[in-house]
């Protein structure tokens, strides 16, 4: 595909010097269509943080692809980065579509937005198999414990004892999608809270730098069906109970570490693109490179309905799908037609061998 000089289609009224990022784009170049979600929906906050993260990282919108399944969460890719291609797939089926698209063009960034119904129920199998394959993309689960578009049924991530107006009381144990991700060997597993934008932005930046699938399970309150004070997926619950399991700074490639942490307090993990995650070592802070500790932490949180956020598991070494498939620098989609069809002689040779 030919590369051309990028002409910004957005025209702004005043001509004063605009604030631009490292590739010369304004924040407005990362905007999407107007949201049709309920006012105050956690998903809109996350869309806004995706814009911030991509703007600040200087991700070219044309080099990012947006994926989603079906549900409130899955509508949101339309609400950020209109200059990026996007595909709203089928309920629970974001994973296979993203797998195919990002194999066809493994140089693109992928951001997928799914929900807890999408990922935790109908698409759980596809989710886990995508993680096994380690497709390079950010997989966001906007987790609110409830089905919104169908008006208030429990999802598989709802805690035991939760109550909803129409659905009653939930007695089924929740599926912890972070735990599922770790058991599927996902190399980046984090939990965030839509009510804590700063942390979400940091997690998103780190996730975008990952070499494989990065799972961000973001508790994103449903203001219409599941935001009452007793709900473990509500804003008030999050604000009062949010326990940060660790503190880290995302350091972009080439950027110098200007962390507020003292050198002895830091643990430094380099990501695929040369960026780094600098973790603060505190006595009670969780070390995400310790798999057993990560599982124990999640087990404890699940059992005691703790609202924990932070970087849960980080093990960035595993090759991604494109690497496993031995794909070269040229994405499959850019292989010219003349290399797609083998020669006449090759066919004649095969035919001769079958005579």
């Amino acid at each position, binding site marked *: 595909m030919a590369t051309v000089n990028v002409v*910004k289609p957005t025209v702004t009224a005043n001509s004063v010097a605009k604030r631009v990022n490292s590739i010369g784009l304004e924040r407005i170049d990362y905007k999407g269509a107007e949201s049709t979600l309920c006012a105050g929906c956690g998903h809109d906050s996350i869309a806004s943080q995706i814009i911030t993260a991509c703007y600040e990282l200087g991700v070219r919108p044309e080099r990012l692809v947006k994926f989603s399944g079906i549900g409130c969460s899955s509508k949101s890719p339309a609400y950020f980065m209109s200059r990026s*291609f996007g595909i709203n797939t089928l309920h629970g*089926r974001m994973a296979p579509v993203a*797998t195919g*698209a990002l194999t066809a063009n493994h140089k693109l960034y992928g951001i997928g937005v799914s929900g807890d119904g999408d990922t935790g129920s109908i698409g759980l199998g*596809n989710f886990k198999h995508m993680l096994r394959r380690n497709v390079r993309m950010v997989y966001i689960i906007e987790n609110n414990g409830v089905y919104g578009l169908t008006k208030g049924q429990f999802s598989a991530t709802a805690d035991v004892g939760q109550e909803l107006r129409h659905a009653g009381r939930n007695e089924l144990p929740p599926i912890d999608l972070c735990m599922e991700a770790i058991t599927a060997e996902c190399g980046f597993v984090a939990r965030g809270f839509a009510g804590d934008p700063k942390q979400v932005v940091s997690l998103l930046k780190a996730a975008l730098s990952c070499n494989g699938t990065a799972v961000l399970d973001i508790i994103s309150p449903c203001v219409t069906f599941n935001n009452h004070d007793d709900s473990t997926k509500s804003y008030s619950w999050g604000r009062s109970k949010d326990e940060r399991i660790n503190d880290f700074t995302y350091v972009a490639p080439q950027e110098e570490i200007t962390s507020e942490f003292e050198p002895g307090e830091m643990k430094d993990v380099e990501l695929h693109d040369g960026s780094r995650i600098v973790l603060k070592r505190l006595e009670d802070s969780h070390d995400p490179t310790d798999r057993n500790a990560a599982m124990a932490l999640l087990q404890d949180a699940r059992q005691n309905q703790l609202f924990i956020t932070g970087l849960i598991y980080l093990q960035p070494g595993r090759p991604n799908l494109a690497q496993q498939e031995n794909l070269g620098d040229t994405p499959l989609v850019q292989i010219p037609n003349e290399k797609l069809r083998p020669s006449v002689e090759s066919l004649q040779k095969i035919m001769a061998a079958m005579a």
Partner: protein
Amino acid sequence: MTVAELGATSPAGVKPLAGTEPENKPEPVVNDFCISVATKNGSGSQTANTTLLRALFKMGIPVSGKNVFPSNIQGMPTWYTIRVNKDGFVGRRPDAEIIIAINPATALTDLQKAGQGALFMYADDIKLPLNRTDLYYYPIPVKKFATENEKDPKLRTYMANMVYVGALAQLLGIDLEDIEAALMYHFRGKRKPVDSNMKVVRLAAEWTATNLPKRDPYVVQKMNKTDGMIMIDGNTAAALGAIYGGVTFAAWYPITPATGVADALNEYLPRLRIDPETKMPTYSIIQAEDELAALGMVIGAGWAGVRSMTSTSGPGISLMAEFAGYGYFAEIPAVIWDVQRMGPSTGMPTRVSQGDVIAAHWLGHGDSKHPVLLPGSVNECFEFGWKAFDLAERLQTPVFVLSDLDIGMNQWMTKPFEYPDRPIDRGKVLTAEDVKRLGVGGFKRYKDMDGDGIAWRTLPGNEYPLASYFTRGTGHDEQAHLSERPEDWEGNMERLTRKYETARTLLPKPIEESVAGATVGILSYGSADMPIAEARHQLAEKGLQTSYLRVRALPLAEEVRAFVQAHQRVYVVELNTDAQMCQLVRLHVPEVAAHVIPCNHSDGLPLTANWISTAILEKENK
């Protein structure tokens, strides 16, 4: 001389009596018979059977091989049938003149079912009451040979199969050089296994020459009717077709009888699609977690702009329904091979059927209708293998190719495949330069610019800022913006209907063989083609001239209408219970629907010429 006189014993204690074989010296039957080999699944008899098949092929005699096998890995009965026919009719025949009974579990039934005058070769350790007097018995010491000639007990069963190859070669007159050439093909030129197998073959042939004088009439003679031809199965042909069509991404889930397609992709792509400069593969094959995910990946890759395909069978098609419909409405190219079998669930997954015609054509919810290609031979599996990609990308829609177990898994002789006669057609794709030239508001993903219902698309990775769009199944306007406006959607559906009519004109046309003055027509498709050729010959011999139209795609071409109009009765011959194509033809030509008569049958086995000609004559005589 009889079996008894030869001293052969039947361990059942029933010694065949002198004179229990036909006494008159029969006229030789040359190059016109069927061989049925009854063995156990997983016993390695495939090597022996395909060796016989290819040896006959190398002798220049028209031949086909069919494996009638159970859904089982090891132990259950399997029959392999080889049809030898000098006139080139190699469709299935239900009976066989030569029976090879190696499986004790079925030997008695094989004996009872053998037709009059059959050559009955059996392993001499099987206890059988040889009380039929109309067969030619040939007991062969299979076990003894295998034990004496193979030290490794694990390989003895395999070697045992070579004993009947040698014995039969001797009796029929198959040149041992042709057997050796066939083994060389099978073992890809590896001398060691060829030699060890040939040793058994030669010993068995020598033993047969000394101990079992020929009394039966069946012989082979060299011909030149396979000169320049190849022998191949339809699944390999499909994969090769896809490769010469530029397949770049394949996702699949294991399923009988379609697995061979992915196997062949895995065999040939590493040889043919490594970039000469970078030495890296220019393709990717992914074994998915299920068929639903397989088509999801294919849709994702097709959306992102590469030629992508999946191969499956009926149960997989069921799981793919939602994605197939999605691909239709989001207008994403994909190629879906359906190697049809009986469905659903288990029981008869290794038996053939043409039962997915309607399901595949209309797969999805909400008015989806897909182009379907219907290959009638291994040659067309190759041809449609590459054409399917041109069609899918030109039409921006999923294209189905309906093969079946008979074409897909069985060996067929054919002319060598012809290299594609036209360049690859990638359809309507706008580059960054194109979008730039069109300017603001110029590119509209779902706008019909050319009147053929096909809009222009851009691909993810197109770096021009106005190139992107957001893909959804339904609810979009021409610019791919979310819209639930009735007029937007109605307009979109009208355009999709126009596109469907465009598809009708681009798909492979039917093949017509009209006979002047014939009032009866046969309309069919797919694997029914081979027996129909023979059935028409049989009907002509009985005084019934028939015209023949073989449709090769859905939606049906306009030529179908003319054919139905031109004949008083058109029998739609197909291998399913609901007469699915017959129903589609009637819908296509409602004004002459009364001409269209079902002639369908479904028992898990390929259609036979005898069944077809008998069924048509019965209907004609009513």
